[in-house]
């Protein structure tokens, strides 16, 4: 059954169409990835789903409740980790969770126990009475994730959860996030503009300029590229090209002294190549396609970081500042 259902959703800000006729479903227990460059419309979609923003047209529902007309039912079903930290840095970790427990009307009897469990779960129990201001970026993120889960929501939204974290911390956080559907019985809707992070998702929708340009599982998407890319360096590229084209009946290209071609299972073609032109081969490498390649193929461009409006530029500047000086 679909926990999140979105039909023909659009949202305009003046002339800008931030979300443009978007439709998708998210199944119970899945990790759904919403993938796209800065300004694609990811946050706007999340804001509509979590009842902070009304759509210009179209429908969105969570657990069967309409996000526009039944906001309080939707709010009870979801937990949200926003792009920018919403922890109160002048409160302790424990107090931040307590505040959440009060806002969600948890029963007194379970409140303490759940907060303690949550703090243990993310390894912050010993730091529970420290001000959040003193936490590292990764600790804050983990605290926000368990805070979002404290009231046992059916759906957890994560908007760019790894933004601004170092690679090691990012990897740890992902390890933690992929376990959540099983351990916490929750469906995850996450966004990122790091394509490689979306590999952990069961399903992905790639969004650009407000439109979903392709959707499917990471493997399905990569299959649309026709397979792996095989790069070969030889002492006689002309002959190698001719032989390989004849052998597999495909087109071979050449760039920077290297010949390359796309093949469904790259490693399976190596024995044939060795048999025919083995004596000229200097190196062979097989590159699995990445989601970046998918994006590149469909849009004809790299994931771009430019094109921020002035308001966004201010926000970005504030974010950068916080990352540097108080590890926001």
């Amino acid at each position, binding site marked *: 059954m679909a926990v999140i259902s979105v039909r023909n959703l659009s949202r305009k800000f003046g002339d800008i169409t931030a979300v443009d006729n978007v439709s998708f479903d998210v199944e119970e227990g899945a990790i759904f990835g919403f993938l796209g460059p800065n300004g694609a419309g990811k946050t706007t979609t999340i804001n509509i789903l*979590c009842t*902070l923003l009304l759509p210009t047209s179209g429908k969105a529902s969570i657990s069967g409740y309409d996000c526009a007309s039944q906001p309080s039912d939707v709010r009870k079903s979801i937990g949200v980790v926003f792009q920018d930290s919403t922890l*109160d840095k002048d409160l302790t970790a424990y107090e931040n969770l307590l505040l959440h427990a009060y806002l969600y009307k948890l029963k007194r009897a379970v409140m303490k126990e759940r907060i303690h469990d949550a703090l243990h779960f993310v390894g912050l129990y010993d730091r529970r009475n420290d001000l959040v201001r003193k936490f590292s970026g990764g600790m804050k993120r983990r605290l926000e994730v368990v805070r979002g889960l404290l009231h046992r929501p059916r759906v957890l939204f994560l908007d760019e959860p790894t933004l601004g974290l170092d690679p090691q911390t990012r990897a740890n956080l992902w390890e933690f996030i992929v376990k959540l559907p099983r351990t916490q019985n929750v469906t995850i809707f996450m966004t990122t503009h790091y394509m490689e992070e979306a590999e952990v998702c069961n399903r992905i929708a790639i969004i650009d300029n407000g439109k979903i340009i392709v959707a499917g599982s990471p493997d399905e998407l990569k299959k649309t590229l026709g397979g792996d890319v095989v790069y070969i360096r030889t002492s006689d590229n002309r002959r190698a090209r001719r032989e390989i084209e004849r052998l597999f009946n495909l087109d071979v290209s050449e760039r920077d002294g290297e010949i390359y071609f796309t093949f469904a299972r790259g490693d399976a073609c190596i024995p044939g190549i060795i048999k025919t032109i083995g004596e000229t081969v200097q190196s062979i490498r097989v590159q699995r396609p990445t989601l970046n390649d998918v994006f590149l193929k469909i849009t004809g461009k790299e994931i771009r970081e430019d094109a921020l409006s002035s308001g966004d530029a201010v926000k970005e500047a504030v974010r950068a500042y916080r990352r540097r000086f108080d590890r926001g």
Partner: protein
Amino acid sequence: MIEVNAVYVLVVREFKKLVREKSRLVSALARPVLWLFLVGGGMSRFVTPGMGINYMQFIFPGIIGMTILFSSIFSSISIIWDKEFGLMKEILVAPVSRFSIVVGKALSGTVVSVIQAAVILMFFPFLGIKLNFPAVLNTILIAVLLSFCISSLGIIISTFYESFESFSVIMNFIVMPMFFLSGAMYPVNRLPAILKILSKLNPLTYGIDALKHSILPNSGMADFSIITDLAVLVIASVVFVLAAGLLFERKK
């Protein structure tokens, strides 16, 4: 309609933060103290309000009003920043009615303002003002009412602005005129007609007038009756907090 747990936790949070950050309290008190002793002290050589009251004594209720005005408005318009970068989004996605959030924020502003106003009030012996315990208590109660009223008004203001760049606009076109047209520094009944009308539309005028009743009784400095003052403050508070609740709903 009002969720007590949510209102309670918002107020407790504000109180904890205030206690923890004493430096915030000290810097917030710098402005009224400077106005009281520098402006008040300087002007008292030229101005004598009469009835045996000197100028510093005359502006003392106004300075308490100023403390409340700035503290309540700051507390409420911090929502603008908080919506983008702070706790506000966490509160807004919680299953809590928007009206409870508004009441919680208005009461948070009230707590902070009243504490600051109470500290300033304790300067009274240095100004040669005599207050007994009931008078101090009455003053604090008026401060509570005025703080709630201005905090609610601040929330209304915050809903009209999306970006924190609007801060100086709010200061220059709303807060400072409210202060000068409130009878804090000079009696409003001697102002030109148009300014007199504006000052009568200013809720702060009635708050400061009520403070004059409780701090400078029988001095003839108040312009309205205490009943009028309290009635206006109560009605304005109710109207403002309801309007803030309506305006606080989701944007378009």
